[in-house]
């Protein structure tokens, strides 16, 4: 491994950063190991660059071991098993389910405007019906009184025409919404299938994790016995998982982890490079 810090290069199986002027944060170092952010040589903005193998799946769980760390044992063991070449019996079915999932891409169907149009045309029609009824009454009253009803009759005729137009529009809007609802129902069938497949994939993943974790559990228990601390703490657990996993990338070991005397012993235990903080 090759570590570049401001104006200095350190190489080797174990790199100790405890004597540097900068207080490096474990997650920043892990970020450098994973190659997140800017690359080496990007200039002074980058305080730390690490040239090392690309981390595998187990590194996510035990790539940084420090007091106060959290660890979910089963997923960590499952990924450790993967690094040892274990393949779960669910792999093929899971791949098939994921293929079908990615092939299902139902389009968005938005019925909002269709619903709004139905509501608006219904309101318009209702308003006009009331207006026509009122005008009819007025025309009748004028005729009964023997008054001039011409203008009112013209107004009634125009309102009646308008009502028939709005009614036509309302029917068209309802038919359009009905067609859109049928399309949405078909679309939802595909969404229902997608949900079913997603649940299936989750269950397969969980079963696969359980199976993989079981495969390396005895090795892990032995390693936990061999860790020279007698605690069940996440740090001891992580040390044991890191021993079980086949790690290529460096493991970051924070202060307060004193299970092994020195970096060399840690590196032997992990069978991987070590960065000490």
């Amino acid at each position, binding site marked *: 491994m090759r570590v570049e810090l401001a104006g200095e290069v350190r190489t080797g199986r174990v790199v100790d950063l405890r004597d540097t002027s900068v207080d490096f944060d474990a997650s920043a170092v892990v970020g450098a190991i994973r190659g997140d952010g800017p690359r080496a040589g990007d200039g002074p903005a980058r305080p730390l660059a690490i040239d090392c193998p690309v981390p595998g799946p187990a590194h996510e769980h035990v790539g940084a071991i420090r007091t106060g760390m959290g660890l979910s044992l089963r997923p960590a063991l499952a990924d450790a098993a993967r690094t040892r070449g274990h393949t779960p019996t669910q792999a093929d079915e899971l791949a098939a389910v994921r293929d079908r999932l990615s092939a299902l891409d*139902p389009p*968005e*169907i*938005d019925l909002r405007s269709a619903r709004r149009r139905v509501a608006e045309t219904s309101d318009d029609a209702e308003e006009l019906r009331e207006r026509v009824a009122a005008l009819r009454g007025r025309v009748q009253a004028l005729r009964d009184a023997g008054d001039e009803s011409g203008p009112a009759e013209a107004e009634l005729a125009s309102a009646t025409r308008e009502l028939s137009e709005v009614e036509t529009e309302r029917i068209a809007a*309802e038919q359009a*919404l*009905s067609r859109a*609802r*049928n399309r*949405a*129902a078909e*679309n*939802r069938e595909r*969404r*229902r299938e*997608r*949900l079913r497949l*997603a*649940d299936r994939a*989750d269950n397969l993943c969980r079963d696969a994790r359980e199976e993989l974790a079981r495969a390396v559990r005895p090795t892990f228990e032995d390693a936990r016995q061999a860790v020279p601390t007698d605690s069940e703490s996440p740090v001891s657990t992580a040390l044991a998982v890191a021993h079980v996993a086949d790690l290529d990338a460096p493991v970051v070991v924070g202060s307060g982890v004193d299970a092994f005397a020195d970096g060399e012993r840690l590196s032997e235990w992990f069978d991987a490079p070590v960065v000490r903080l």
Partner: protein
Amino acid sequence: MLLVVTYSQAARQTLRNVCNGHDEAVVQRFGRAVLLEATELGAFLALRLREKHASDVQIERTEAFNEFEDAPEEVRDAATAYEDRAHPSTPYTKFAVGTDHPAPDTMRDAELAGDTDR
């Protein structure tokens, strides 16, 4: 009531959260679906779900079903007669043959009165 059905894991999770927070608006839960009270609060919760998850949320309004208003007499009679059949293994299609009871195909294409669309 308002029937809300979800069609994705995320929408289903939001539905659970909403129901947990608003028991007073929930009539009944069915996993990825729920019946909400036909109140403004029920509508508000349903619309929030649709805002967040768009096509992964279906909202329908349910109505009380009165078979004496909503279902034809021959359908009511057929249901009663079939559930009173002599041989439990007889499928309805066979049961209806040679009787006045409507065939399933006939019923399938006959919309209930007052039902605009589904």
